[in-house]
């Protein structure tokens, strides 16, 4: 762990975004994770994405559970709201917070242990309810805090650092999210920020349940030969299906692409997701073909990355519940206690 504070000095030419903030203004305290941890790269990608979108830090709530991954919200967005919850229970806390104040941007950060083992039930329900959030799993396939046992996402047949072979089937969280109804599903690699940053930006602007499975090598316990989560293995077996450009409302579209190469998705907030196809037969608007493509490539030992599926007309939990557009935590006494006449009317409607 590094004891030194990161110097406040920054590059003299460091640009500022529309709010006048530099990227450094979106940082947190210095990471206490092992040097070289993939999670730190994901933190850097989140910082970059929030800076590029010119998000006001105080409009973000970052929530996490327990684990190496769940420590990371300390290392980014230190001007944002944060809640480090119980192991595997981040989705419930996030759902509750989202119901109370629908106006914030919710960023759930979790790991493979937190989401695929102890919290897999919570994970399933937050997805199927369609809570408007960005849910990032920092997936390294091991329990790093307890010295490298296989986690539930470790591939069957992969080897631990001590040479033990994993005999259990691994959970593919992206496939799970697809099956459970998430409306924005992506997979990426901590070592590829060019791909990861736009995916996070797309997820942050997505008006429904957005899930990103980020493969993040554990340098201490899962970066050896025989691991399927090492830097080398992921680089060699990474099959990106597309590259995403997120074009916010204010930004002019300038680049031109040949027809058929690009798929465009207009989101509720007006932002445009522009997908440059890398795999020509891949269609990210179909949930079923996404699932089958990911699984068929997995059978060939390949890891499919990119924006796997996006539902342009996504809705969220508030829409399903028909809640008021004013955040519940901002309703005053008058709205919450409308008086006897209103109660009588309500009771009458049930008779």
């Amino acid at each position: 762990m590094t004891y030194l504070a990161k110097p406040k000095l920054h590059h003299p030419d460091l640009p500022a975004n529309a709010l006048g903030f530099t990227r450094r203004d979106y940082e947190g305290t210095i990471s206490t994770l092992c040097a070289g941890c993939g999670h730190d790269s994901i933190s850097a990608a989140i910082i970059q994405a929030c800076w590029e979108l010119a998000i006001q830090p105080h409009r973000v709530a970052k929530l996490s559970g327990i684990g190496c991954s769940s420590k990371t919200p300390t290392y980014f967005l230190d001007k944002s709201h944060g809640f480090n919850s119980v192991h595997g229970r981040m989705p419930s806390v996030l759902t509750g917070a989202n119901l109370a104040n629908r106006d914030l941007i919710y960023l759930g950060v979790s790991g493979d242990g937190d989401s695929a083992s102890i919290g897999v039930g919570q994970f399933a329900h937050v997805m199927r309810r369609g809570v408007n959030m960005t849910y990032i799993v920092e997936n390294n396939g091991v329990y790093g805090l307890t010295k490298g046992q296989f986690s539930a996402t470790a591939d069957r047949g992969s080897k631990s650092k001590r040479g033990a072979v994993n005999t259990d089937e691994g959970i593919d969280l992206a496939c799970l999210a697809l099956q459970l109804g998430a409306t924005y599903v992506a997979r990426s690699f901590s070592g590829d920020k060019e791909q990861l940053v736009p995916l996070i930006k797309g997820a942050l602007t997505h008006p429904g349940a957005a899930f990103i499975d980020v493969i993040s090598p554990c340098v201490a316990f899962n970066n050896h030969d025989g691991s399927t989560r090492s830097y080398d293995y992921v680089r060699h077996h990474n099959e990106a299906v597309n590259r995403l450009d997120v074009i916010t409302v204010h930004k002019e579209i300038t680049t031109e692409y040949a027809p058929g190469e690009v798929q465009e998705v207009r989101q509720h907030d007006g932002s445009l997701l522009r997908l440059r196809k890398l795999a020509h037969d891949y269609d990210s608007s179909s949930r079923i073909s996404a699932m089958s493509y990911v699984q068929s490539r997995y059978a060939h030992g390949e890891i499919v990355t990119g924006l796997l599926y996006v539902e342009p007309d996504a809705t969220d939990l508030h829409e399903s519940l028909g809640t008021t557009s004013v955040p519940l935590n901002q309703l005053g006494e008058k709205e919450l206690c409308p008086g006897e006449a209103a109660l009588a009317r309500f009771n009458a409607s049930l008779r």
Partner: protein
Amino acid sequence: MKPTDIGVADYFHKVVDCQWACPAHTPVPEYIRLIAQGRYSDAYMINWTSNVFPGILGRTCDRPCEPACRRGRVEENQGEKPEPVAICRLKRVAADYKGDIRSRLPKPATKKNGKRIACIGGGPASLTVARDLAPLGYSVTVFDADAKAGGMIRTQIPKFRLPESVIDEEVGYILDLDVDFRPNHRVESLRELLGHGYDAVFVGSGAPRGRDLDLPGRQESARNVHVGIEWLASVSFGHITKVGRRVIVLGGGNTAMDCCRSARRLGGEDVKVIVRSGYEEMKASAWEKEDAVHEGIPIMNYLVPKSFVHEQGRLTGMAFEKVKAVYDEKGRRSLVPTGEPEQHFECDEVLVAVGQENAFPWIERDLGVEFDKSGMPVLDPATLQSTLPHLFFGGDAALGPKNIIWAVAHGHDAAISIDRFCQGEDVAARPPPLMNLVSQKMGIHEWIYDNQIVPDARNRVPLKELTIALKDIRQEVELGFDPELAWKEAQRCLNCDAQTVFVPRLCIECDACVDICPMDCITFTADGEEAEVRARLNAPARNLSQDLYIGAGLKTGRIMAKDEDVCLHCGLCAERCPTGAWDMQKSFIQMTHAGPGCREHAAPRKAA
């Protein structure tokens, strides 16, 4: 791009901007760290080895290191005003607080090598030659026209900037090396001197002639018009102790600043500096201008002197023409009269400090020493050898008026030339510097050097109260940093000699260094041409005077490109690297001076 070869000493030497900019290449960060540790004597010796006159230079140096200091660049666009580390005044701290270092100086040679060297002029260049050569066994004789050695250090720098005791001490260290100093001995004929059969002769006679201004009225008011450097010398020797109430100083260089500040102390109440150029283009160092202004001396610019106004053989004032700067399409400046009526300034005395000239009337032109059109000797700029093989030049006498630190650098270079010449070796071959790279890693998160970056602004040197300082011309006006303030200022040094050394074969390309770097110096990217790579780095590398450190041979085929420009040398890249591909290694670079190290056929060393 070609991967960087860090085995070439110049690569890391250039990263230590201050040391690279110093003509004598003093290892600056090394001695600043020693000052921070309170090891003043050690810091002094580092300086003494490189620049010979730490106490003198710590007060008077022209500081080429400070504009080069990286601290000034990294503070840009943040904080009030970007400013370099106060390198020069920290040097003075080493001199002020050191203990008795005499036991650490070289001893006079016990055995002479039979070679006789003559140095003409007893200033910094000659004294450096003497210091480098005398301990090696050379018999060095230094001739000077004045009673005491020191040259312009003693005659031209006012005592309120540099006390005589400091000069005596540091000049004494050299003369104590069994150097034969011949005071009051002006060399009037080189032919005569060469006749004594010296093995080599070094000319370090300075630029002794101050330029005059031949304007109407100059002759008539001669009694009240003086040439700056001559006047300063007379003040220094105590021949002049008073000046008129109203004084005009002409010229915008450091000599002009010394003149006006001296005049303020000798009874000048209304002292002003009048220059032809604009304030910004003045030749004087920024801090010397500030000091003059601080002492209540106005600097008036864009005024060209026209005539000395006099009445009955007494100077009454001067007339000036107002000009403005006009730039042509090539950016060249010319001063064009504005057409306004001439301005008149009343005064009792004028000091002319408009430049210095070299003069060699004592060198007979038939000795084989060639001179160029401007009257300067034809020299090889690296060896300082003249067309007469055993005659060498250095300091202001060599390449025109510069400053003390250049004189010292010339002295070292000439000493190497003389040493090789006297040993029968090729003078043109120059010795490479010594470079040592040592890892600074002490534990997993511990480094030998202090890598915390402090946000502090530059600390000001405390001054003596003006009313007291102006009363006595021998009263040193700068008090210097005390140990506490010196420690604070030393903390601002970025330790640029703690180099980021990258080993590509250990790198797993995890991006940890890229993510942590506070200055966005590091990029992993596709290879390309330098200009194009510079443009697409995480932070585009626009400062072309700073190199890119390139590492190649990575698994993905990309290159690691690090822009050295604004690196804080904080070591976070090395600290966050999981495989030790980055390491912080201290580069200690020292120039090779005259002696066995600079020769090819070095005598075998005795075991320690």
